[in-house]
């Protein structure tokens, strides 16, 4: 449904988006996650055709956004970071304007607009001037505006910002219910939003995609160093040597005394090994009471913090560049072969 290849955006010398590629299938809800200034809004502005990319392609439902802008834009409903509202119009006038602007085709305009108003609960303010609405209501009008004409693709830039908790829950479930017939990309800073709404997370930092997977896979991949915390009532050195002798344990780190005579250890299993039973057997053998034993799985927050480390983005960007250079030099070699050995000699003599 949405196909993005090698998207790059430069603002002057500032690289805001750096060779982003991903695709989103029909009916998917993708969460776009990243710290401030990561390039989320920029990417969304390019996907919707508001900005043009310095390099790269965006294809929406088979239509390239620059080659067939009208066709591509017809499938998109966009809620920008700042809802594009005309302050001097009433909500109803505004929605009518957007309906006409998008050249929406529905059986009955009034009915369609009323349905949309009902979805985001703005029916009772529809005759109010937009400039007099509160921030949350403006946001809702912004969402309504994106829904007009039933576009197949919804691009929502921080859709729940400024809403009250009840409304946040309602909008989330609205988005979830839309996913049956729509493809959605939404950006957010709120991790729980991604968890509750999205099928898939794309984490972006410094203009680079640092992760693109389901939340579950992400946490599994990242917790390769799946650690356990063990709290045991035993002499520290004895426990340490005994634990590290366990076959499936890769390493043990003492974590200090937590209570009188009670020590904590961080256990790191060898790859893909389950150490839980071994640990239990050992403690039973030695008669050391186990006071706590828990798995330190990474939650999305940990993943986020880990992946948005600038070093990660830099190394990915570097790897991308290297790949590009390699393929470029391969091309060169090819062309050299094509032009014969003469040039090669020339280059050598240089």
């Amino acid at each position, binding site marked *: 449904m949405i196909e993005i290849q090698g998207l790059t955006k430069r603002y002057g010398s500032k690289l805001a988006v750096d060779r982003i590629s991903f695709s989103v299938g029909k009916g998917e809800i993708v969460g776009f996650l990243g710290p401030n200034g990561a390039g989320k809004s920029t990417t969304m502005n390019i996907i919707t055709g508001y900005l043009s990319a310095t390099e790269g392609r965006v294809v929406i439902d088979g239509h390239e956004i620059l080659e067939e802008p*009208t066709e591509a834009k017809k499938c998109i409903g966009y809620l920008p970071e700042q809802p594009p509202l005309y*302050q001097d119009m009433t909500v109803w006038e505004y929605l009518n304007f957007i309906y006409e602007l998008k050249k929406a085709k529905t059986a009955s305009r009034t009915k369609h607009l009323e349905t949309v108003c009902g979805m985001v609960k703005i029916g009772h303010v529809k005759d109010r001037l937009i400039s007099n609405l509160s921030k949350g209501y403006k946001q809702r009008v912004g969402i309504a505006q994106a829904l007009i004409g039933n576009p197949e693709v919804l691009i929502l830039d921080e859709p729940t910002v400024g809403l009250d908790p009840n409304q946040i829950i309602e909008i989330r479930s609205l988005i979830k219910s839309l996913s049956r017939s729509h493809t959605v990309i939404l950006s957010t800073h709120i991790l729980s939003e991604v968890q509750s709404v999205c099928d898939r997370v794309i984490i972006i930092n410094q203009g680079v995609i640092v992760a693109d997977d389901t939340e579950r896979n992400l946490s599994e991949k990242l917790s390769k160093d799946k650690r356990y915390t063990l709290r045991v009532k035993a002499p520290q050195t004895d426990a340490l040597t005994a634990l590290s002798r366990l076959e499936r344990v890769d390493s043990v780190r003492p974590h200090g005394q937590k209570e009188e005579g009670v020590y904590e250890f961080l256990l790191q299993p060898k790859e893909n090994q389950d150490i839980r039973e071994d640990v239990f057997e050992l403690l039973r053998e030695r008669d050391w009471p186990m006071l706590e034993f828990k798995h330190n799985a990474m939650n999305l927050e940990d993943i986020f913090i880990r992946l948005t480390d600038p070093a990660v983005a830099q190394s990915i960007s570097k790897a991308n560049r290297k790949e590009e250079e390699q393929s470029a030099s391969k091309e060169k070699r090819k062309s050299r072969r094509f032009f014969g050995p003469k040039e090669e000699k020339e280059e050598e003599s240089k």
Partner: protein
Amino acid sequence: MTAIFKREFSAYFKNPIGWVFLAIFWLFCGWGLFILVSAGYNMISYVFSNMIIVLLIGIPVLTMRLMSEEIRMKTDQALLTAPVSLSGIVWGKFLAALALFGVGMAMTVVDFIILSSFASPQVSIFVGNLIGLALMGGAFIAIGLFISTMTQSQLAAAILSFAVILFFYMLDGFASYAPWGWAVDLLTSISFFSRYNEFTNGILDYGNIIFFASVIFIFNFLSVRVLERRRWS
């Protein structure tokens, strides 16, 4: 394009801007009529040839917010991501401003009717005047719209448009002082007002019509280019 035209035209009446423009325009028509009637002349062209003041003040007011406000409030995101072409956006806005200008011009018809009740009507001269004013107004609107696409400050857009119209107003003055023959030719050839004066004399010259029409097309085209370039910046 029609959606943008309708929104823009109705916006003029929601803001003081549209009313300010009409007030200036109509005040001027009334004043011109008063002078003509009190002097006992039947010269509708007098009203038109003094319209320059209206253009000087009125057009910048009319065009300053057309794009600037959209850019400042980021409402252009709705327009540019809708299935509308950039030229559709520019022409919709241009025609809305021109339509309001037309509403202002309607008052000259009232002037004409009142004058006609005193003396025999000079229909052809009046029609020539109307066409001339609409064309020159359109040309200045296109220029003002172009300036408005370049800045997000309404005030800057208004002042710059004012300066440009003033420049064209004074062009004939420059021309008469220009020391070289070719400069005089050049300046008079792009002079809006000497062409406009031919209309007020009831002369319908195709060259003049084509001149103003080209100015409109060129500046609307430039506005489209500016919007296009903004995407790539």
